[in-house]
């Protein structure tokens, strides 16, 4: 092979990481998949092949479809909300304001707070107690005269999980704001000026010059937010415990593995989560790599 001397060192440099990831990620994924096809359904390990038994069990499990609904609603609200708020904040800051450093620190602060701590305080804020027992945000709404906004928050029958996304939006908007801010500022000013010279209104400048530049940022943000959303566990448990009303696949996996000790079924959930994620990530990765090759 020509030029092995050239690129050989590069491969060598990443090879320890390749080995580590191969063992600790892919090795364990394979272990997981194996367990999901086994009959290890109790505290006594067992590695006999059981085919799709655990998957069929999961499929007919009504809790599972609830979990899927919950995580879908949570993910969509979380991602859309964080992107929107982050973009808005970056938009407000991008032309430069006095005290930008202060505002940025304020918006970034929630990221410093762990999900457990955020869960504790948001549980108070989203208190669903009705009537004269109302506390948290419901009471604030009442005092501000917008009492009709008071609702059941994360206990709401249909939109509960959307409310559950609020602490997550709170925690991560600052970070997405920082990403977008960098994106905005990376747009060369002469491009904007040129468009303005051509008579475009400020709004059209944004629409046709600036926002297209933000597409890669949005994609990056989607990946990061997506992976947080699927794995989120601390936050859900801090607010709703492991009850069915706020349960997600990650929480159900915990219950199956550590409470019921149904390892195969728990591993089946992990495998399905990975499959679901790959369906989203692989196209993204393919797109990114192709875009890079084109550039």
């Amino acid at each position, binding site marked *: 092979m020509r030029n092995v001397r050239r690129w050989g*060192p*590069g491969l060598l440099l990443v090879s320890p990481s*390749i080995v580590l990831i191969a063992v600790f*990620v892919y090795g364990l994924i394979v272990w997981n998949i194996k367990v999901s096809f086994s009959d290890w359904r109790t505290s006594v390990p067992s590695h006999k092949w059981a085919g799709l038994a655990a998957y069929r069990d999961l499929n007919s499990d009504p809790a599972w479809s609830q979990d899927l609904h919950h995580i879908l609603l949570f993910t969509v609200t979380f991602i859309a909300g964080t992107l929107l708020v982050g973009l808005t*904040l970056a938009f407000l800051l991008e*032309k430069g304001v006095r005290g930008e450093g202060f505002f940025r620190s304020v918006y970034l602060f929630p990221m410093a707070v762990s999900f457990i701590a955020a869960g*504790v305080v948001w549980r108070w804020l989203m208190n669903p107690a009705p009537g004269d027992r109302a506390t948290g945000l419901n009471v604030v709404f009442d005092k501000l005269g917008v009492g009709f906004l008071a609702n059941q928050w994360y206990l709401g029958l249909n939109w509960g999980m959307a409310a559950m996304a609020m602490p997550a939006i709170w925690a991560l908007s600052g970070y997405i704001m920082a990403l977008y801010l960098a994106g905005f500022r*990376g747009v060369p000013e002469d491009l904007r000026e040129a468009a303005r010279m051509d008579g475009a209104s400020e709004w059209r400048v944004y629409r046709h010059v600036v926002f297209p530049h933000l597409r890669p940022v949005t994609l990056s943000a989607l990946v990061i937010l997506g992976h947080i959303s699927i794995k989120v566990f601390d936050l859900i448990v801090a607010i709703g415990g492991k009850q069915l009303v706020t349960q997600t696949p990650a929480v159900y*996996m915990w219950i199956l593995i550590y409470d019921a000790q149904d390892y195969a079924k728990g591993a089946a959930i992990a495998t399905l989560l990975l499959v679901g994620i790959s369906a989203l990530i692989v196209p993204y990765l393919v797109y990114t790599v192709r875009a890079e090759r084109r550039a």
Partner: protein
Amino acid sequence: MTSTAVPPAPPLPARARLGRRGAQYVSAGVVRYGALAFFAILVLLPVYVLVITSVKGVAETDPSHAWSIPQLWTTTAWRDAWTQLSPALGNSFKLAIPATIISTVLGSLNGFALSKWRFPGADIVFTFFLFGMFIPYQAVLIPLTQLFSDVNFPNGIPRLIFAHIVYGIPITALIFRSYYATIPEELMEAARMDRAGMLRTFWSVVLPVSAPAFVVTAIWQFTSIWNDFLFAVFIIGDPAKWPVTVALNNTAGSFVTPYNLQMSAALLASLPTLVVYVLLGRYFMRGLMAGALKG
């Protein structure tokens, strides 16, 4: 993923651009500040509850008193939080600082090899890494701990450091790779013409300009390692070696939850990351603008 190597100078704030559209800009400025302030209040609301509850006595810590100013200001919650958390804080530092430094450096080496010293299949390796970001931790906890004890890995914090380094490989490689992609090819060409080998190129050309990416990665890694709960509670069996997130969770107790202690402990646990943000926030922004995580 092209961008100018030097970020443009920040334009004049909107207010200063008076002229024929002066009045419009002034009112735009007011709206802008109003919106920024509104969001700042929203973001700080939970922080207010955290702070105000942490200085209350137990009698007043009730969700129904979430918003009220304490009748009796007391520091008992903070003192108790300090007593309960200070050993764990030490553990968290012992965990987060080495793990952050090592995983950041590892990320820079990997990012460099994957973007600037490419080898056949570099993109495949990158995709291979990236996919590992999505594995749900519950799925790997049991085999991971078994693996640790099978190879007799040094017990306690070293295991946790190792786990965070390994599972941090994908995100750190992602950040550095996007950042290094913005290094002009001319610099690499010049080094090649000088017959500099890979390590020499890295040391003399790439590393000196890596500071922004180091900052972004370090902040991200420090935050996620500091705030991690799942790995910590499982990998570390000895309560004396628990990091602060586990100690924070333990303030809940299985009987009555002392809310003021929980809130003061949550704030105490967030202080180090907050300090990191305040000190390094500027560099964080610069790092993002210079191309880290641009997509």
